[in-house]
């Protein structure tokens, strides 16, 4: 498994009211296959996840993926770390399904015909084979998220970071996408509000007020988060 590391990584942003801390200095070493990050809205869990492929840069400290410093070798890290967003609409940039997957494969396959064949294979694998030539706008929310995942996984990253991938989905699609994510060979860093999904991971990190509040076994992590919400209300 790849190794994801934070070395006293912190993120602050300048606002009109002065500096706001989005993530206090955090040190973490993630080596498990499936790690869930849970916590309240605005707690900083999304920021924590985005550090690992350089979408957010730490204002201090270091982020290291498999020995590669994210700040210095952003390109190499992004080839290794795939990222899936909550809203697939922002992620799908081509008109039809097969073309969107082909876009991910451009770097791997220069030949147009072979690239299309590989893209069709990928779509087939994620159950979207019959939608290859369908407009990405005509898909249902669940299909869009599956396609976004197919687009990211087509590039065969070693790690997948998913930022609330099931938040916009119905129950059936949540299960489908959840099962797909948890069944991946890749290392998975899953930011989620779905506690059932989090409980099925190997490790849970609970983020509260820009700090890691709990880090350990999944069941206990979910229990800790539920208790923390009860304390506050």
């Amino acid at each position: 498994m790849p190794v994801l590391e934070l070395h006293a990584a912190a993120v602050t942003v300048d606002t009109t009211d002065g500096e706001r801390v989005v993530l206090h200095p955090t040190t973490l070493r993630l080596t498990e296959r499936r790690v869930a990050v849970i916590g309240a809205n605005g707690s900083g869990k999304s920021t924590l996840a985005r550090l690992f492929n350089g979408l957010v840069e730490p204002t201090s400290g270091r982020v290291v993926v498999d020995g590669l410093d994210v700040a210095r070798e952003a390109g190499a890290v992004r080839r290794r770390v795939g990222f899936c967003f909550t809203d697939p609409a922002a992620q799908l940039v081509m008109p039809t399904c097969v073309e969107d997957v082909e876009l991910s494969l451009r770097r791997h396959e220069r030949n147009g015909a072979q690239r299309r064949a590989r893209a069709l294979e990928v779509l087939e694998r994620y159950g979207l084979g019959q939608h290859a030539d369908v407009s990405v706008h005509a898909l249902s929310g669940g299909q869009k998220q599956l396609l976004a995942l197919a687009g990211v996984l087509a590039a065969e990253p070693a790690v997948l970071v998913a930022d609330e991938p099931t938040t916009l989905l119905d129950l059936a699609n949540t299960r489908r996408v959840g099962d797909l994510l948890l069944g991946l060979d890749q290392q998975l860093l899953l930011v989620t509000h779905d506690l059932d999904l989090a409980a099925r991971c190997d490790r849970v990190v609970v983020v509260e007020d820009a700090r890691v509040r709990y880090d350990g076994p999944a069941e206990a992590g979910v229990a800790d988060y539920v208790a923390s919400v009860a304390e506050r209300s």
Partner: protein
Amino acid sequence: MVAIHQPGDTLLHRLPVGPKLAGLGALSLTIVLVRSAPASLLFLAVALGLALLARVRLPLLLTAARGVLLIALVASLVQGLFYGAGKAVETFVDLLALTLAAVVVTATTPVNAMLDALVRWSGPLRHVGVPPERVALTVGLAVQALPGTVALALETRDAARARGLGRHPRAYLTPFVVRVVARAHETGDALAARGLGDD
């Protein structure tokens, strides 16, 4: 607006992008340069023939024709006022023929094939510091941004209506602009996350 490409296996589908675009360019130039009403009817017939050859679906042709209809009508009215009825007919039919020819090319060419061609053609630009892949990606994004932006506009208008803010432009223009910019940021993040534009 949304994904005009229509997969198929006709002669026009199999034709490489280069000759197809060159053909469109030549036809367009001829249509614009040859000034006679009977000739423009011939051009319209040619465009229609191409559409038939490519088996472009009728609704697609009608939608595209409807889109240009208003502009064609206004343009030909103005032309008619100054230069007479013959010129008006010519302008109207010419514009229609141009639109149909363009639709045929778009309908028979996948965006990725277009991008590949762009990458090839902008290859020489590499020597002056312009990465061809990025040129192609930019064009692809611009094409795709249109339907997304239309969807955002409709959503924002509905949101303004739902709150009873009615038709005041400020009620939907401000949030619309904010959302378009936010979407642009998200798309940028998504491209960066997919490693596109890194090399």
